[in-house]
């Protein structure tokens, strides 16, 4: 364990969370100096190397190897230092966040990282063509205090702002100005931005070759501030066909595969050369319904049955989550009674519990609500976004049939499904929600708060409760943690008892890897190759 003393703080922090064996493995990696290549495949490629042009998982995942953020995300959801070694809200002014930068950081072109680059990058992320601007909406100004200190002036107290920074990458101002990429790609313009296929980050790997949708090769950046990782070369290949991706792993053409199809997990585990590692994803799958409108669009009855608490309770009692887990998900899910996955701040054991299905009671409730013969309504579901999304909805259609609700399943591709929710054109729908900030506020802001300005963008349940709205707004600026937690618990109680959502389960992630690759599954589905250890 001597070697741990030389590890960078990021690793030191991680160690605390790891078991003894894993820690030993990590310590051994500090001494091994072999050049090792990992061949990595997943379903889709990063869309661009421009770090602020797309707010999308696979794009961020690849960019985390080339660029760096101020803070990183730990396996357990906590924050870890990356380019910032220290951060906090100023004691005398709770609207200012202070970040202290690491000293010995250089970009791939050799120039040193300064506070000015951080100022530039956050401003770039706020540009009109940036897809990251939603995360920096409450930033008023960014100031470089000295070479290694940055102050971010917020519009008001923003205790959660640092949680928004785990995917905001830092670029070099000089490089960006030299290549005319001070702003992210404008899709309406005719030119390709230099930053789409070229990069100059501070990350642990440099780009050797980038052939979009075919092959990306990265190599260890020797002047990186951290110790050399086990993996010094990455060959990243998207393979969109499920069976081909699995075949490539079995035939030894790739070492690590993300996005394993559920039906192949069992047979992969039988293969001696392949290990399957599972972990909970930070993503909840749930149904929701329009409970706020006067009339439904697709129902065969007057008024809005979803406005009735009895109907909502009946639907919750009709949903057999365990059956969906066993039959549809082949055991690969974590049934839940809430839309917050367990890592999310504000989650409680009590919310997580879900009722046993009770068809008798559900039928009684339907009769009490005035729908003894049920009603019919359209159920919208995506069929290519979440694990077995269409099958989950199909199963629920059958369960609803038992209590007289005739749901007509409308199953569509994601680009047709999500606009229905965004434009409020659906009565009843399936949605999956990840929480990148790992805090309940994110769920409340987008799904619970009524639709106004930046909030409530995905609140297609049209839930509109002024008291809850006020609590959510108060929570956003409350810097006292205890007070904030109390507000949060209050909102959750209201949301759960009003049954804004009908949660099904939390999605599980499964990674397949060659024997000898040792990796945990991060809940944000962003595996980092420099944290992987290779056994011999």
């Amino acid at each position, binding site marked *: 364990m001597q070697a741990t003393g030389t590890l960078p703080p990021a690793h030191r922090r991680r160690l605390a969370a790891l078991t003894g064996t894993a820690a030993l493995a990590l310590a051994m990696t500090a001494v091994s100096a072999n050049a090792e290549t990992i061949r990595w495949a997943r379903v*889709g490629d990063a*869309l*661009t190397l*421009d770090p602020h*042009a*797309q*707010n*999308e998982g696979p794009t961020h995942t690849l960019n985390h190897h080339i660029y760096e953020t101020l803070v990183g995300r730990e396996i357990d959801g906590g924050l870890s230092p990356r380019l910032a070694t220290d951060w906090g809200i100023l004691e005398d002014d709770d609207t200012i966040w202070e970040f202290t930068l690491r000293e010995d950081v250089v970009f791939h072109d050799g120039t040193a990282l300064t506070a000015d680059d951080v100022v530039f990058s956050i401003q770039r992320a706020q540009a*009109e063509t940036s*897809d*990251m*601007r*939603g*995360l920096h909406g409450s930033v008023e100004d960014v100031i470089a205090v000295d070479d290694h200190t940055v102050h971010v002036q917020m519009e008001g107290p923003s205790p959660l702002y640092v949680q928004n920074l785990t995917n905001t990458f830092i670029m070099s101002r000089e490089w960006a100005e030299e290549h005319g990429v001070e702003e992210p*790609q*404008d*899709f*309406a*313009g*005719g*030119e*390709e*931005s230099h930053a*789409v*296929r070229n990069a100059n980050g501070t990350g642990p790997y440099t780009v050797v070759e980038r*052939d*979009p*949708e*075919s*092959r990306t090769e990265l190599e260890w950046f020797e002047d990186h501030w951290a110790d050399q990782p086990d993996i010094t070369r990455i060959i990243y*290949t*998207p*393979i*969109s*066909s499920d*069976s*081909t*991706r699995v*075949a*490539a792993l*079995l*035939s*030894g*053409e790739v070492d690590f595969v993300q996005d394993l199809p559920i039906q192949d997990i069992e047979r992969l585990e039988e293969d001696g050369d392949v290990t399957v590692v599972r972990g909970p994803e930070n993503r909840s799958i749930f149904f929701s319904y329009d409970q706020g409108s006067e009339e439904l669009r697709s129902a065969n009855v007057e008024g809005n049955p979803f406005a009735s608490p009895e109907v909502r309770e009946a639907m919750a009692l009709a949903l057999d989550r365990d059956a969906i887990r066993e039959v549809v998900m082949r055991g690969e899910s974590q049934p839940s009674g809430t839309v917050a996955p367990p890592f999310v701040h504000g989650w409680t054991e009590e919310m997580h519990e879900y009722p046993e299905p009770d068809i008798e009671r559900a039928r009684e409730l339907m009769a009490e609500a005035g729908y003894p013969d049920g009603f019919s309504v359209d159920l919208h579901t995506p069929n*290519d976004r979440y694990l077995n999304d269409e099958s989950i909805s199909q199963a629920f259609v059958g369960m609803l049939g038992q209590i007289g609700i005739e749901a007509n399943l409308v199953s569509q*591709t*994601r*680009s*047709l499904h*999500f*606009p229905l929710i*965004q434009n409020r054109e659906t009565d009843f729908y399936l949605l999956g929600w*990840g929480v990148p900030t790992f805090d309940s506020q994110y769920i409340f802001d*987008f799904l619970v708060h009524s*639709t106004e*300005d*930046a909030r409530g*963008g*995905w609140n297609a349940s049209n839930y509109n409760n002024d008291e809850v709205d006020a609590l959510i707004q108060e929570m956003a600026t409350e810097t006292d943690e205890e007070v904030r937690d109390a507000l949060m618990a209050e909102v959750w109680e209201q949301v759960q008892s009003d049954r804004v959502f009908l949660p099904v389960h939390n999605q599980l992630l499964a990674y397949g890897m060659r024997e000898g690759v040792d990796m945990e599954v991060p809940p944000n589905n962003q595996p980092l190759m420099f944290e992987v250890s290779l056994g011999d």
Partner: protein
Amino acid sequence: MLAFIIRRLLQSVIVMLVVALVSFALFRFVGDPVSTMLGQEATVADREALRQRLGLNDPFVMQFFNYIARALSGDFGISYRLQQPVMELILSRLPATLELALVSGFFAFLFGVAFGVYTALNRRGWLSSGIMTVSLIGVSLPTFLIGVLLIWVFAVELQWLPSYGRGDTVWIGGWRSGLATSSGRYAIVLPAITLGLYQMTLIMRLVRAEMLEVLRTDYIKFARARGLSDRVVHFGHALKNTLVPVITITGLQLGSIIAFAIVTETVFQWPGVGALFIRSVQYVDVPVMAAYLMLIALVFVVINLIVDLLYYVVDPRLRVDRGAAKG
């Protein structure tokens, strides 16, 4: 002759415009590109602003004419998904698709003719029956299943050939070729077989039927009566006379091989235009979809034009008839 070519070219332009119009009308049913382009934190205002910038709020007819006007000046826009100019993107993927189409077309022609001749000459042999039966499977199985089966046998079980990708590539002039490297040649085998299997069966059955027909004709009987060897009769006289329709079919099929490589390219992660198109549909990448469909229309228009011109050159009667009709 010149008038004919000009007339055909004008018709081709109209065909292209109709294809563009129909595809533009269909794009509205594929979904909203803005919902896939922006992350989940985007506000209603952000989405509206992007829609405005992209001109998606304009009436459909105006979007169409704007597109055509820009396309005429060579600007096909930027891919919503990959953020590269569309023409550059398609041209960079085209060599992969063309190499795959040519190799699989060659494979289909070679084996189709060989098997066709063999089964025609040995009609009752057990090998012939075997080939005919297997060829039925080739026509009836969907392409992706054949691809997956081949991957399973040759990549996973035997580990002779790679399961995905194009292998190493080298630049030859402006052409990025995988055929010039050994790993590239290994990589093309399975996709080429998958893509060419259907065409091979088609050619085989065509050759077999034509051969059987020709072998019954009088001039073959006379050739045999003259005491010519089997080899000369079969290959010098019979096969030669069956090849005219076969070559026509193969030429025309090349167009569909290029157009329908979509499934094969997806199964084998072949970095060609077909795979690009299918991912563009999922992402509602309108500029790429529009340009791809125009390109495929162009391929068919050009092939048909060449075929028409060849007929005109080969068959003198066409010219005489036209001349007479005008007179």
